[in-house]
């Protein structure tokens, strides 16, 4: 069951702390032995400052009360370092905690620094300490504190490199606090910086993009504002004409170094009804990358839109369901403890069925309803599938008639009227000519008037 698990491929592109939710999910799904996951967690924690948590896990893993000396030592060290950092950042923090004083800060950074320096004797050292302190807080797992400090640090920081890493830190903190709205803002800010910034090497930029895409998965599949609009955004980032250059860039990044992201791209396209036009392009990309990356979701699209092999598609659909359930991003549960649903799965299945059905109808004139039900993987009785199709027809999604006697659906063959075609093709000629004439006449008139 674990063969389509992408955690190992995604994890390297994430922050340590961001991997936790993934591991939690895996633990919950029980794809891997519990011990292994716990070990992985300890390993993960060993480079963070969340020593207490690591100790807890250690206890749970080995069922002992003893904790290795190394952990105890590290705890002491962490605490002392925290103290020292706190001290060095104290003046600035106390300043920042005073709402009245903060009011005095202005958008002008130079002015702020100057003012801090003159009135409070807060110099570059303290500001730097704030950053370190925030980072330390983050590593300790105090995300909200870290987010606050980083936000304020960005207002004071003059070093663009630092500012960027502060932004990354802020994004991570917001994601971990599940403040999706804020995180989304940060994400967009970060994206703009990455796109506009000139990196030392294209490789570096590519890496940044890949990170951004991976991190964004958290936001895009979790935004509380309703997943639909978020996926729309996910695509807007890449596809709308205003961002068309990003389409190339981010798609490029996916194709070069992060093929597994195709799964999320594909899922998002399938689930989103309003982005149907992306499908063609997506299929092209999937086809191109099929030698590098394959999973049931991409294979489903391929069998449906390249090979037109409906039996295969049906098989893949079954696998897809499992994949979605086991994916930390896609398989998010909603609902109370005893009745949990995976909304994405349902939507995915619904949409895929629609896809299959649509394509199937497109090339058929007459279909046996029972065969159709089987192809769609509906597990319905004849009557149920009949009802489903009737529903479609009633909602004017399908131009078809049911032949109840034979148990078939008949698609009417619609030919576009020749006249219509001609009118259609000539339609815009009128306006184009008008426009042309206008463009020619106007300057002439202006010239005449001025004379």
């Amino acid at each position, binding site marked *: 069951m674990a063969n389509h698990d992408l955690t190992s491929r995604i994890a390297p592109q994430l922050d340590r702390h961001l991997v936790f939710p993934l591991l939690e999910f895996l633990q919950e799904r029980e794809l891997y032995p519990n011990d292994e996951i716990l070990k992985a967690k300890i390993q993960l924690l060993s480079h963070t400052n969340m020593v207490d948590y690591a100790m807890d896990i250690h206890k749970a893993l080995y069922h002992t009360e003893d904790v290795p000396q190394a952990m105890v030592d590290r705890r002491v060290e962490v605490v002392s370092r925290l103290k020292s950092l706190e001290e060095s950042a104290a003046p600035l923090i106390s300043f920042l905690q005073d709402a009245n004083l903060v009011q005095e800060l202005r958008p002008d950074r130079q002015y702020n620094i100057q003012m801090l320096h003159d009135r409070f004797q807060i110099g570059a050292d303290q500001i730097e300490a704030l950053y370190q302190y925030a980072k330390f807080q983050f590593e300790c797992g105090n995300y909200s504190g870290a987010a606050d400090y980083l936000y304020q640090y960005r207002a004071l920081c003059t070093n663009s490199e630092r500012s960027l890493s502060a932004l990354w830190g802020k994004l991570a903190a917001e994601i971990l606090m599940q403040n999706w709205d804020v995180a989304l803002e940060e994400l967009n800010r970060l994206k703009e910086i990455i796109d506009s910034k000139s990196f030392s090497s294209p490789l570096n930029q590519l890496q940044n993009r890949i990170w951004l895409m991976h991190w964004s998965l958290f936001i895009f599949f979790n935004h509380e504002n309703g997943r639909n609009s978020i996926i729309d955004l996910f695509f807007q980032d890449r*596809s709308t*004409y205003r961002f*068309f*250059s990003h*389409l*190339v860039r981010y798609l*490029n990044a996916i194709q*070069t170094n992060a093929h597994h992201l195709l799964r999320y791209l594909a899922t998002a396209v399938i689930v989103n*009804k*309003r982005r*149907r*036009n992306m499908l*063609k392009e997506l299929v*092209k990309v999937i086809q*191109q990358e099929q030698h*590098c990356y394959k999973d049931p979701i991409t294979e489903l699209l391929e069998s449906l839109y390249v090979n*037109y*092999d409906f*039996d295969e598609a049906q098989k893949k659909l079954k696998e897809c369901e499992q994949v979605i359930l086991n994916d930390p991003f896609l398989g998010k549960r909603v609902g109370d403890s005893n009745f949990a649903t995976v909304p994405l799965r349902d939507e995915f299945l619904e949409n895929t069925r*629609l896809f299959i*059905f*649509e*394509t199937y*109808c*497109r*090339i*058929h*004139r*007459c*279909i*046996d309803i029972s*065969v159709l039900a089987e192809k769609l993987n509906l597990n319905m009785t004849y009557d149920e599938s009949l009802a489903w199709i009737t529903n*479609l027809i009633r*909602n*004017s*999604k*399908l*131009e078809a008639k049911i032949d109840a006697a*034979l148990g*078939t659906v008949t*698609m009417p*063959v*619609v*030919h*576009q009227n*020749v006249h219509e075609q*001609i009118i*259609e*093709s*000539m*339609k*815009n*000629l009128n*306006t*184009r*000519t008008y*426009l*042309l004439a*206008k*463009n020619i006449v106007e300057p002439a008139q202006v010239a005449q008037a001025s004379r």
Partner: protein
Amino acid sequence: MASRFWTQGGDSDTEEEEQENSEYEDGSDAEQPAGDNAGATARSRYLRDQASDSDDSDGQHRVIKSARDKRFDEMASTVDQMKNAMKINDWVSLQESFEKINKQLEKVVRVTESVKVPNLYIKALVMLEDFLAQALANKDAKKKMSSSNAKALNSMKQKLKKNNKQYEELIAKYREKPESEDEGAEDEDEDEDEESEAEEDPSKIVMSDEENDDEDDEDEDDRDEEGGGAWQRKTSKKDKLMDKQFMKDPSEITWDIVNKKLKEIVAARGKKGTGRVEQVEQLTFLTRVAKTPAQKLEILFSAISSQFDINPSLLGHMPINVWKKCVGNMLLVLDILEQYPNIVVDDMVEPEENETQKGADYNGTVRVWGNLVAFLERLDSEFFKSLQCIDPYTREYVERLRDEPLFFVIAQNVQDYLERIGDFKAASKVALRRLELVYYKPQEVYDAMRNLAEQTGTEEGLEDGDESEEKQSIEENRGPPVFISIPELVPRKPTFPESSRTLVDALVSHIYSYGDERTKARAMLCDIYHHAIFDEFSIARDLLLMSHLQDGIQLMDISSQILFNRVMAQLGLCAFRAGLIQEAHGCLFELYQGGRVKELLAQGFSQNRYHEKTPEQEKAERRRQMPYHMHINLELLEATHLISAMLLEVPNMAAAAYDPKRKPISKTFRRLLEVNERHTFVGPPENVRDHVMAATRALSKGDCHKAFGVISSLDIWKLLRNRESVLEMVKSKIKEEALRTYLFAYSSCYDTLSLEQLTSMFDLSKAHVHSIVSKMMVMEELQASWDQPTKCIVFHNLEQTRLQSLLFQMADKLIILAENNERAFEARTGGGIEGLPPKRREGMDYATSGASNRWQDNYVSGASQGRQGGGYGGRLGYGGRTGGSAQAGGGFQRDHSGHGSRGAGGYYGGTGRTSYHASALRGAQVEGSAGMVNLSRAGRI
């Protein structure tokens, strides 16, 4: 002497000499023949003897004069006139004569086809100069002159000054030597030069020997003797030169003496009268008496560069034995560098005068001028050139190929050395040279080379060593013992990793991290080529696309362009083997577009009827040729190209019968087919082209079995490693395309057609047929739909009335008209009309970029290269990666079409945008179905 012409066989050595002398003594005109007597014969005096030596006899014994002699006589008479004029101090006639002689000089030079100016002319110049100086000095006489005479004198003064500047050197030389005895002195000089030149080419002597082996025994003996004599003479001369100084007690030889001698030899380099072979030998001798390692190194460098000098021409290659010796010297250099790490080889800084005096025990760094990489590159190109020149069907070629490991050793050692001293940039250059030896080798060939290097590599090395050792031992007997003995430190055997992939990977990754732009690009191409050979199409393709090499290849040097073409060819073959017909065609069709595939791959010359090449162009092309063992099989390539074109084009043609808008995919193929169809009688297929044409005929009738039969009867398939699987692939592709063609061609004859029937007709599985037919339906290539319960295809035939089709044509023309108007407007105003369909605009950009690409096509006359980059990217739909504007524009357009179709009704407000959406609508109509089933309506509402 009169009988010389007949009795040349029995001449003795002395007579020979005499003859030569006498030849020169013939007078002013006989001197020239030596220089001009046409390359081949004059090159080697020994050869000339037995060839008819017409130049000897004419001028002296015969009344009939050659054109050349006539010219010389004319010149001589002009000189006489000048002399007369001088006597009477007539500057006017002198000026005339001067102009005359200049004209004659041109003629002479043209006739003799030499660059050298005849001595007679120089002599006249000197005479004039002297006389002029004299006249100018004598002011009284000048005053007395008539005005015209004085004028002539003045103009003569200026002209002569100008003119003489060109011949300054010759005049100086002439002045140096006494003018007595005609050109005696000069002759000797010439003579020597001639002689040494002749000797310099030992291989030629040997060759001529072989040639005439059975022809004339006597003659041969004679020549052999003579050759031997020459050699002996030479060595004795050299001994005289060297041993005088060095045969003394070894302890007396000091650094200074050696240094002085080295300077002397180096100074003589390139001068007239210095034998090149001789110089090498002198230097080799010097290396043995060098006092310090640094000095030895310095001398070795000079020796190597003079070894390179031995072959002066660009076309010919270095004699192989010299090449091998050069390799030996290089190894010696590396040994020294290995043993004395404090010696730094540098070509940037001019080292101090006495830097090399520092002995072996000196601790600091010693700088020696030299450039290992340049030497290595030269060695490589000499190796390459020799392979170019040698006839590939001879044993000699194979022998030469066996020297490859030898070069590999040095390259490896040099690279190691450079890496050790931290000069990674230079090391990457060396790595490229190594890579270029390996990249084109499939695993089998690579293994063979590896075995050769391991087994015979040592032998060969020994053999080679023997040769030099032998020489050394001879010399050792004579000369003093070597002062600085260097043990063989660097390995004499190349090491090859198990698979060539690892080797290529190692080299390539080194180059990527340190190389310069060109090196990197070439390495990338080699890498792609290698991947393609190993059937890794997707990796090769990704590399090619990611590197953006297609965009910039036109701006690179010609040899890189050739490499690029080779890569494309190999990529095409690889795609074909992988069953990616479209990709294969995309890679190959540009190569075949101009019918100059041989030229593009540098595997021979293609004749162009309309464009004559100048000799320079031809020479340059010859220099670019690939050695035979690197060739890509042209028949295979052609078959691949034509078969893939056939598979794409035949269904396309069948479909085009109903849809006039379809464009031909491969124009080349269409043309061939037209030519073939014009034949009244069609014979059985002979060459590749005939085979494919025969298959095409069968295929266009939907007869897949016959088509495959013809194709599989080609013999080139045996060149493929995985022959069975490729043939299997070809078979299934042919079946598929036959099915498609059949449906296109005969759909109008059917009302329904059952799946069963199709499967039995084309021997394909049901699922396969279903998939193909479904695809055609979705793409709207086939106006039909399935009837699921009966498993039949139901065709909906749409017949247009004549009026309707005329209407369509009119609509098309109107659209074109409107577009032309807009274009004219744009061209006039420079700016576009707001709200024009973006696609067209982008297309125009494309066109201009294509045009701008065209100029760099200098190396090939046509323009087929020009659009290779863009075309490839666009056509195969790799856009996603090729990046750039093309893809961006595409995305743009597509997005708008979607947008338009969604909100078409509401957006008609602003005039500026209307056409935008309208055009988008059109796009949507084309893209989307004609309204069969559309479930996405829900999304719209």
